[in-house]
C-alpha cells in the first residue's frame, strides 16, 4: 500500500524519534555495567548521576521505545491487513500526545527532578511533569486503537461479512485491549496518588496500594511488549524462511490465552512484602504459570513453522534441517530473519529464568538481585528489542522507498547482541547467588574490605557482565550504521507500507478463536476475582500508616525540607 504526506511522516517519526532516545538509553546501560564493575569510578558520568541514568535507561528503553514502535508497527500492520488508510487527524492527536508526553518526562528526568527509576515507587516522589508525561504518552498510544483501527475494522467487516478476523489484526486488538485494561490501575495510581502528592495537594498516600496498582499494570506490561513480537513471529517470520505458519488456530489460541491470563499475575512481583496474604500470592503464582502456556504453544508453532520452511529449502533429517535456515542471508527481506532467530534464542533463557521468578518461594533466592536484571535483558532486552529493531529498520526502508543499507552489519547486529546479552545474563544470574543486588551503584566498593558492601566474589561476575554489555553495544553500533545509512539513502522507489505475510499450513476456521468477546469476559472475571481482595487488603489490613513524600536527596519528608528552607530565608 502506498503512503504519503502527513501519515508517512507520522509513521516514520514514530520510528526515528524513539530511536534517537534509544541511543541515549543504550549508552547509559553501558555506563551502568562499567560503573558496577568499578571500571568507571564515579557515581556520576557525563553529567548524569547513576540513578538518574538508570531512570532514563529503564524509561526510554522499556516504556518510550517499546510504546512508540508498538504503535508504529500496529498502525502499519492494521493498515496493510485491512487495506484501509489511517485517519490523519486521529494520528496527529496521538502523535502530539505521545511526543509531548515523552518530552515532558524527558525534561523531568534529564534535569534530575525524577530520580525515581522506571517503577517510580512512592513515597519517593518525582516532579509532576514526569507523571503527566507518562500519562500523555500512554493515552496517546491508545488513541489510534479506539478512533482509527476499531472504526476501520467495523468498516472492513461490513464489506467482508464472511471474512475471517485477520490474524495480525486480532493480535493487535488483543495487545491494545490488554493495554487499555492495565492502563486503568496505573492511571489511578498516578492521578489519585502520585500526582496529588507531587503537587502537594495531599499530605500522604498509601505506598502499599501504590505498589499493588503499579504491578497490576507492571507485569501485564511485559505482554504488551511481547505480543507484537509474537504477531511478527506468526505472520512474518514463516514467510522469511520460505514456509508457512504451521497452524493458524494455534496462533489465535495463544493470543487469546494471553488475553485471559496476562493481567491477574502482578502479585508475583510482591512475594517478599508484608501486607499481602501468602494465599493470594500463591494464586497469582499459579496464574503466572498458566500465562506460560501460550508461550509454550508459540514455541511449538514457531519451531514447526521454521521446520516447514527449512524443509521447503531442502532441509532433511530430524535435526539437520536447522542448518538450512537463512541465518546470514542478505537476499531481499531475509536479513530480517537474523533478528527473530537471535531474539528467540535469548527468549529461551528469558522464559526459563522467568519461571524461576514466578516460583513463589524460589523467588526468595532471586528477588531484587541481579538475577532479575539478567532475566529481563533476555526478554524485553532480547526478543522484544531485537524484533522491534528489525521491524523498525524494515518499515523505515519501505516508508522511505530505499533498500536497507550496510546489510552485512544489519545481519551481524542481532548476533552480537545475542552473544553480549547471553554473557550478561549468565554473569548477572551467577552473581545473584552471591547476593549481587540490582539497582545499585556498587562501584568496586565490594573489593574494599573496609566497605560495608565488601563482597570480593562479585568482582569477576561484575566484570563479565560489563564485557557482555560491551559486546551487545557493539551490535547496537552495527545496527546504528545500517539504520542511519538507510535513513539518509536516496529513495529509489515509491514509499509503501508492506510486510512479508505468511499463509497458514493448517488453516481450519474455528469461530470461537475469531471472537474476542467470550475470552474478554473470562479475562475480566478472572481479574476481578484475583485483585479484589489484594486491593482491599492493601487499603486496610496490610497497612497501618500512610506516608509523606520524599525526594532522593534527603532522609526527611519533602514538606519538612521545604518549610525549613523557607524558614531560613530572612524576611
Amino acid at each position: 500500500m502506498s503512503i504519503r504526506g502527513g501519515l508517512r511522516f507520522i509513521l516514520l517519526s514514530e520510528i526515528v524519534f524513539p530511536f534517537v532516545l534509544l541511543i541515549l538509553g543504550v549508552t547509559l546501560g553501558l555506563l551502568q555495567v562499567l560503573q558496577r564493575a568499578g571500571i568507571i569510578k564515579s557515581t556520576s558520568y557525563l553529567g548524569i548521576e547513576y540513578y538518574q541514568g538508570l531512570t532514563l535507561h529503564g524509561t526510554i528503553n522499556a516504556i518510550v521505545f517499546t510504546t512508540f514502535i508498538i504503535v508504529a508497527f500496529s498502525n502499519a500492520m492494521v493498515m496493510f491487513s485491512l487495506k484501509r488508510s489511517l485517519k490523519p487527524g486521529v494520528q496527529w492527536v496521538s502523535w502530539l500526545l505521545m511526543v509531548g508526553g515523552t518530552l515532558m518526562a524527558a525534561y523531568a528526568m534529564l534535569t534530575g527532578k525524577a530520580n525515581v527509576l522506571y517503577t517510580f515507587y512512592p513515597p519517593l516522589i518525582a516532579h509532576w511533569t514526569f507523571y503527566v508525561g507518562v500519562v500523555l504518552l500512554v493515552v496517546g498510544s491508545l488513541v489510534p486503537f479506539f478512533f482509527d483501527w476499531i472504526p476501520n475494522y467495523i468498516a472492513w467487516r461490513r464489506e467482508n461479512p464472511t471474512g475471517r478476523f485477520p490474524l495480525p489484526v486480532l493480535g493487535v486488538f488483543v495487545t491494545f485491549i490488554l493495554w487499555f485494561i492495565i492502563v486503568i490501575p496505573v492511571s489511578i495510581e498516578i492521578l489519585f496518588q502520585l500526582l496529588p502528592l507531587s503537587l502537594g495537594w495531599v499530605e500522604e498516600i498509601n505506598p502499599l496500594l501504590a505498589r499493588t496498582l503499579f504491578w497490576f499494570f507492571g507485569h501485564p506490561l511485559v505482554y504488551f511488549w511481547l505480543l507484537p513480537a509474537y504477531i511478527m513471529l506468526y505472520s512474518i517470520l514463516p514467510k522469511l524462511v520460505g514456509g508457512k505458519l504451521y497452524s493458524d488456530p494455534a496462533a489465535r489460541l495463544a493470543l487469546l490465552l494471553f488475553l485471559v491470563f496476562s493481567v491477574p499475575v502482578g502479585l508475583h512481583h510482591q512475594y517478599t512484602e508484608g501486607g499481602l496474604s501468602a494465599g493470594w500470592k500463591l494464586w497469582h503464582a499459579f496464574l503466572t504459570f498458566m500465562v506460560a502456556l501460550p508461550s509454550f504453544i508459540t514455541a511449538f508453532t514457531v519451531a514447526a513453522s521454521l521446520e516447514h520452511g527449512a524443509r521447503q529449502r531442502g532441509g532433511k533429517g530430524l535435526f539437520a534441517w536447522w542448518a538450512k535456515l537463512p541465518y546470514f542471508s542478505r537476499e531481499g527481506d531475509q536479513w530480517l530473519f537474523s533478528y527473530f532467530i537471535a531474539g528467540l534464542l535469548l527468549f529461551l533463557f528469558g522464559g526459563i529464568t522467568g519461571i524461576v521468578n514466578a516460583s513463589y518461594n524460589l523467588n526468595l533466592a532471586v528477588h531484587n538481585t541481579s538475577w532479575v536484571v539478567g532475566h529481563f535483558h533476555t526478554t524485553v532486552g532480547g526478543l522484544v528489542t531485537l524484533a522491534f529493531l528489525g521491524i523498525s529498520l524494515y518499515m523505515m526502508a519501505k516508508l522511505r522507498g530505499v533498500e536497507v543499507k550496510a546489510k552485512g552489519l544489519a545481519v551481524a547486529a542481532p548476533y552480537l547482541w545475542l552473544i553480549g546479552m547471553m554473557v550478561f545474563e549468565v554473569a548477572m544470574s551467577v552473581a545473584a547467588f552471591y547476593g549481587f543486588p540490582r539497582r545499585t551503584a556498587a562501584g568496586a566498593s565490594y573489593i574494599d574490605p573496609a566497605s560495608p558492601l565488601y563482597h570480593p566474589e562479585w568482582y569477576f561476575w561484575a566484570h563479565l557482565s560489563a564485557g557482555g554489555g560491551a559486546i551487545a553495544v557493539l551490535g547496537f553500533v552495527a545496527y546504528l550504521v545500517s539504520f542511519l545509512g538507510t535513513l539518509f539513502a536516496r529513495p529509489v522507489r515509491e514509499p509503501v507500507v508492506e510486510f512479508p505475510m505468511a499463509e497458514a499450513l493448517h488453516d481450519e476456521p474455528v469461530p470461537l478463536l475469531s471472537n474476542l468477546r467470550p475470552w474478554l469476559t473470562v479475562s475480566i472475571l478472572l481479574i476481578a476475582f484475583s485483585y479484589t481482595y489484594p486491593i482491599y487488603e492493601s487499603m486496610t489490613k496490610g497497612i497501618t500508616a500512610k506516608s509523606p513524600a520524599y525526594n532522593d536527596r534527603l532522609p526527611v519528608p519533602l514538606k519538612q525540607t521545604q518549610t525549613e528552607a523557607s524558614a531560613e530565608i530572612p524576611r
Partner: protein
Amino acid sequence: MMDRFEKNAIVLALALLFFFFGLVVYAAKALQIEVPTCLTGVNPFQEGRVIVLDEGAKRYQVNLLARMWNFEPYEIRLPAGAKVDLYLTSRDVVHGLRINYTNVNLMAIPGTVSYARVRFDKPGVYSIVCHEYCGINHHLMAGKIIVE
C-alpha cells in the same frame, strides 16, 4: 482442529507447568519455605532492636528498621543456632534486604511490617545490603549479622 503433535506439545507443556507448581506447593507446605504474609496486630515500630525471647532456647526477636540510608540496628550479634523472628519495616521510603545463605528476602514498606523466621546455624558474618533503590545514597546502605 489441532493435529496430534500440537496436542502433544500442549499436554506436555501443561504437565510440566503443573509439575513445577506442585514442587512449589510442596516446598511451601511440606518444607515450610514460605513467603511473608499479611501481618495483623503488629504495628510498625519506630526503633530497631534485638529482643531476647528465651536465652536458653536461643530464641530472639529482631525488629529491624530500615531508613535512608542505614539499618537500625546496624550490627546484630547472635549465637550460632539462634532462632530469629525477624520483623522489618521502613521509616521513610521503600527499602529491602536479602540475607545471604538464607531464604530471607523482604521488602521494607513504610506502614507495613514484613516477617520471616530464620535460623543461623553457621557462625560467620551475614552481610545485609539494601536491595531496593531508596535515593542517592542507596548503595551505601548496609548492615550485618554476626553469628558467633
